[in-house]
């Protein structure tokens, strides 16, 4: 494994992230998000494949009512996240091309990533947000639901961690 350029100081980076969130509040009246972008895209796919199925679910409908789900605010924001993170990693020499290099993760790790993604998708959909949209943005606005979600997610994480020790040696 080739050495990676070290990451930025976490507190300072956290303050920068907080200023980005603050700018988002000031410019748009709402916070950041991530899971909503996945819900928009999923709703768009379902509406294209089977319009009846989409119309039957109030969940999909809620993502289809305000114009095209492909250019929803959060979808464009997530495109920006991909661009910003790619630029930052490339400029700092931290891009790890696991597609071609010998640092490819194991099949088990990929499967765990997929399974974890499914659980987080379900959890975020039930909670109406994820770590960005609910915990961070809602937490900063002192929403009780955001704090409940945040406490529950760390509680579950700390309780499950000992059982998954083999995954993270």
């Amino acid at each position, binding site marked *: 494994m080739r050495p990676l350029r070290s990451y930025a100081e*976490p*507190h300072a980076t*956290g303050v920068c*992230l*907080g200023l*980005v*969130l603050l700018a988002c*509040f*000031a410019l748009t009246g709402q916070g*950041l998000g991530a899971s909503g*972008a996945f*819900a928009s895209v*999923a709703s768009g796919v379902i509406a294209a494949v089977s319009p009846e*199925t989409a119309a039957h679910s*109030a969940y999909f409908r809620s993502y289809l009512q305000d114009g095209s789900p492909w250019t929803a*605010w959060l979808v*464009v924001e*997530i495109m*920006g*996240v*991909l661009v*910003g*993170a790619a630029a930052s*990693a490339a400029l*700092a020499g931290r*891009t*790890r091309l*696991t*597609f071609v290099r010998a640092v490819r993760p194991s099949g088990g*790790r990929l499967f765990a*990533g*997929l*399974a*974890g*993604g*499914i*659980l987080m*998708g379900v959890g*975020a959909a*039930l909670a*109406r947000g*994820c*770590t*960005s949209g*609910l*915990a961070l*943005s809602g937490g*900063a*606005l*002192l*929403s*009780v*639901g955001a704090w*409940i*979600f945040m406490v*529950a997610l760390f509680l*579950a994480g700390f309780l*499950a*961690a000992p059982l998954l020790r083999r995954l*993270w040696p």
Partner: protein
Amino acid sequence: MNDLLIAGGIGVAFGWALECAGLGDPPKLAGQFYLRDFTVLKVMLSAMLTAMLGVFWGGRLGMLDPNALYVPETYLLPQLVGGLVFGLGFVLSGLCPGTSCVALASGRVEGAATMLGLFVGVLLVGLAFPEIEPFYRSTPHGTLTLQRLTGLPYGIVVALVTVIGVSMLAWIAKREAAR
């Protein structure tokens, strides 16, 4: 159009900050749950305190209206259960929805696996929605905030959260210095 330019710009800055902090690195994120690496808590607490104080003082100085901001609504049970399921998924993948995109963008194929999983997860909820809708809409409390819940003034709650947050960061720093 203007809205989407803002969305893209905010997204770039968001992704940039997450990548700089190292939050696109699954073992680093998972390390939080084994108390080996406190980056997740440090970044989250610093960011939340900054934005919370910014909104409060921005309101006090008349630069923005805190009451005009969209506060996520509280649905007690769905958010409790959703948080528990989400936390389990977080340790399994070592990523969350936003950071899965950062992982992919920094060349990690795990990010794509988690993104695919997230897509499947929200799809499952959408497909099963007619059945789970009663639970999804249960225990609603509207835009309940900590100040409304406790009856304390906004400024006092902000001060208390700041003291608790800074104490946690100080405790983490002390713990790391002792090692």
